[in-house]
């Protein structure tokens, strides 16, 4: 049997207390919040064409040049970031903006990779739609100045055409003497109830993006089929 010195025991007690206390304090300790200063909350791609900014449909007229613009929030962080414009896995350009030429074969990026100084990256995918507004053909039935013999029960045929750069559905509004008819995708209808005299009509076309074209008013005259009278 050996003796342990009293000093050693006191030291042991202190160590034991410190160890238990340290363990207890360690349990209560939580790591501090990470440094979030300079964090980019969102990254978006805008399109600028003819000074108009589009950040929703990303639709451009293929016959005119445009610019893709990277936008980050908060904006203060933009100078500390690098921007890489991709088409699938191929880098097409570097920088905050990317010019788009009015060329059908021109490859337009579909992704933007953003990197900060610590090489943290974030990739945003997008799809630019190259599409021009629909346009109505000038040839219509009736033609401008047509004279039609018909009574008020006779169906008068209205016919028009429209061009669209894509296959998506177009919708039309036919306006006869200030009365509008939503005719959907129809391009030919027959309407009766038009009295003898002068009339006019026009057509408005819309695509699914809200782009539209309006035909100028076409004037025509209906005459009495028995007397030929205009009034």
């Amino acid at each position, binding site marked *: 049997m050996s003796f342990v010195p009293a000093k050693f025991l006191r030291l042991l007690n202190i160590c*034991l207390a410190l160890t238990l206390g340290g363990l207890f304090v360690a349990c209560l300790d939580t790591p501090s919040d990470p440094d979030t200063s300079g964090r980019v909350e969102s990254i978006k791609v805008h399109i600028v064409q003819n000074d108009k900014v589009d950040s929703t449909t990303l639709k451009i007229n293929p016959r005119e040049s445009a610019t893709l613009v990277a936008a980050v929030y908060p904006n203060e962080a933009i100078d500390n970031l690098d921007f890489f414009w991709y088409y699938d896995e191929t880098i097409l350009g570097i920088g905050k903006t990317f010019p788009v030429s009015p060329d059908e074969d021109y490859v337009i990026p579909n992704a933007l990779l953003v990197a900060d100084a610590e090489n943290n990256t974030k990739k945003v995918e997008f799809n630019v739609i190259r599409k021009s507004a629909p346009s109505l053909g000038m040839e219509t039935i009736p033609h401008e100045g047509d004279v039609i013999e018909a009574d008020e029960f006779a169906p008068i045929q209205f016919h028009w055409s429209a061009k669209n750069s894509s296959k998506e559905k177009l919708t039309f509004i036919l306006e006869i003497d200030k009365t509008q008819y*939503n005719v959907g*995708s*129809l391009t*030919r*209808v*027959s*309407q*009766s109830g038009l009295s003898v005299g002068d009339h006019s009509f026009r057509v408005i076309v819309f695509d699914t993006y809200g782009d539209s074209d309006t035909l100028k008013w076409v004037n025509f005259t209906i005459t009495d089929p028995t007397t030929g009278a205009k009034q």
Partner: protein
Amino acid sequence: MTLKHLISLVLAALVCWAAILCGCTQSDDVIFNESNAQHINVQAFFSKSLDSNTVGVKTDTINPGDSVIFLTSVYPSKAIRSRDYFWTKDGEFFAFEYNTKKAIFDPGYHQFNFVFIDFFGDTLIDTLHLYVGSTPELDNKNFIPANNTQYIGVNDFVNFAWNVYDPDSMWDMSHHFVLKQAKGYYKNPKVLVDTILYDANFTYRKGFEPLGAYEWSVSVQNELHQTAQETIHSTLYTKGVNSEAALFGFVKYNSTENTIPLHLWMTNSKSTLVYDETLSYARGSAISIKPLNPGDYTLYTMAKDKPDFNVDSTKISIVANRVLVLDTISLEDTTPPRISIANSLDDTMDYSDTLKFTIKDFGSKVQEKRIKVALETSSVSTFKFSNDTLFVTLPELENSWSTRIISITAYDYSGNKAQETFKINPHKSLPEVFSE
């Protein structure tokens, strides 16, 4: 201190720590005892009234601005201790009350939660679903082709189009489109198209019969099953072959009979008979005369064997390829019924228990409910009318030694009035009465 003491000291410290740790988790005071628990249940409903007995629903559809009543029930009672209760709408605070009534204006889908936090901090939630949508509007004045469009070719493709307005611009709409042979123009009208569309237009390509009448109709509802108040009902007519035309005529007449025999004949501008037909005409149907060559005609219409009706003559002009719809043919009965004693031309009759009279009308006919009988100034209700014969049952006559006057009033279906009075001979003499 020995090493033995040291070991004892460390062991004692460990036992103390173990006791402290166990004490934190093994107190009987915090053990859940199911028998002490109280079950709480909350329910929320939409209701049509604040009466708690009313039937509530969990899902409802309203128009923007409509008021909605929110009802709650708490089991075992709303009087139990609770920390809080409130309503949320789409995750945002909405109301503090258990039951409340509020108008909801914003269209779309809304989720209402009734949140109940009990005394122990447990949260109970019940959820309601509300769809707010405006009823779609259908333009039943402007559509293509317009009502009564003529000259449609039998092989024409016909494009139908109509205007629908969704005030919310957020609900899909379905359109019930029906195209059929027009009722009244055909004995057994055929349905050509009966379909649900998701666009406000339809192209019909399967052709028509020449000189036909076709009805088409549209009704619209949105995906919340809110149906537009307006509907489209329109008629179109097809053209004939080789410029032939047709006449459809509707005959108006006042009569108790739903079918009457009609004699129709038509002459051209040279008074030559071009059409002569007797047919059984059902009320509301159309007489059809086709094909006809273009020209001017006079159409005569007469109710056969009903001389009280006038003979209608209508001048018409038939246009090539057109169906003329004539709704001005009118047979009018201006002659009142004839009332007489049955099988007699006299105006006096002997007393009998049942008196018989004849009421005849050669037009729109007489119904029992349009007959009145009076004995002098007293109304008599004991009568029956059958096969033009009126049976009047009289009780034993008072003052039966004197002549009595009975009057009969009858109206035909066209409102023409006839009134006749007749004498009833005394059936006892004054001495006979006194001797009794």
